[in-house]
């Protein structure tokens, strides 16, 4: 196999694993489908916006949970926003972590919330690494003169 085919094979396998392991869902593939020659960096841009969002919201949640009297409504509204964003980009593990988080907000359970915050933080960090790896593979394929295969 030549270099391009090898890289493409790697890309397909890696992308498939992301879906299989539940890191991303169909919503992510919808985003990939929107990318084309007139808009080649769409996915990277959307994903960057998402991770900026994540970082900001996680910080806000942490601050809110540090207060003497925790405003759980406030925490919940941040989690709700993150759930919306993660759902829009197909970050399904982050989204699921948010769903669990909201139940603890509703129950006004600070310990539970802190655990969930940790979980959310972890999920988004792992996803960030995974997607960066995916984008690197894409860059390698493009640099070698190949095209990015579509993974259904």
């Amino acid at each position: 196999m030549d270099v391009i085919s090898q890289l493409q094979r790697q890309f397909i396998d890696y992308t498939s694993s992301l879906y299989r392991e539940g890191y991303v869902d169909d919503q992510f593939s919808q985003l990939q489908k929107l990318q084309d020659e007139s808009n080649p960096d769409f996915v990277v841009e959307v994903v960057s916006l998402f991770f900026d969002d994540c970082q900001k919201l996680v910080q806000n949640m942490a601050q809110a949970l540090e207060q003497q009297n925790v405003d759980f409504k406030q925490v919940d509204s941040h989690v709700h926003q993150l759930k919306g964003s993660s759902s829009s980009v197909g970050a399904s593990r982050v989204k699921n972590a948010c769903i669990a988080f909201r139940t603890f907000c509703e129950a006004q359970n600070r310990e539970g919330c802190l655990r969930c915050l940790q979980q959310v933080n972890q999920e988004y960090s792992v996803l960030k690494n995974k997607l960066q790896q995916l984008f690197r593979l894409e860059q390698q394929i493009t640099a070698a003169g190949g095209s990015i295969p579509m993974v259904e």
Partner: protein
Amino acid sequence: MEFEEDSTASKRMKIAENEDPITKVQFSALIVDDDPLIRKIHSEVLNSLGFQTRVAKSGKEAVDLYHAGANFDIVFMDMQMPVMNGIEATKELRGMGVSTKIVGVSSECSESEIEAFILAGLDLYYAKPLTDANKIIPLMEDLKNKSVPNEGPKKTM
């Protein structure tokens, strides 16, 4: 107020001109959402279907646009926004006599919130995110079949 570059849309339009007749007609859409991520995704989806898009970051910005004389073929309105939310903005626009098709787009609303949103004057409601072309294409069909032109001054882009 943000103005969405339409060069991408026009590029796609040129490509699509010889294909699907639906994409020959260029519609304008206003995307109202406080989340830049959603604005970006929805703009891209609509651009890819041939819409010229413009964005507003809040209900108030959307209303201000109409006050300033802007007009659109269709408005995609988020519900939860600071300053002025989707329900208030929709009520305002209807109160101003705006007859544009307004599609409510939101996430995680309760039954009663959706009801209130629809009662405020929506034509339709969809859950976020709106990336399914199958949901948007029928809307374009409706716009094509509209016999009465939109109320409002001629749009300036």
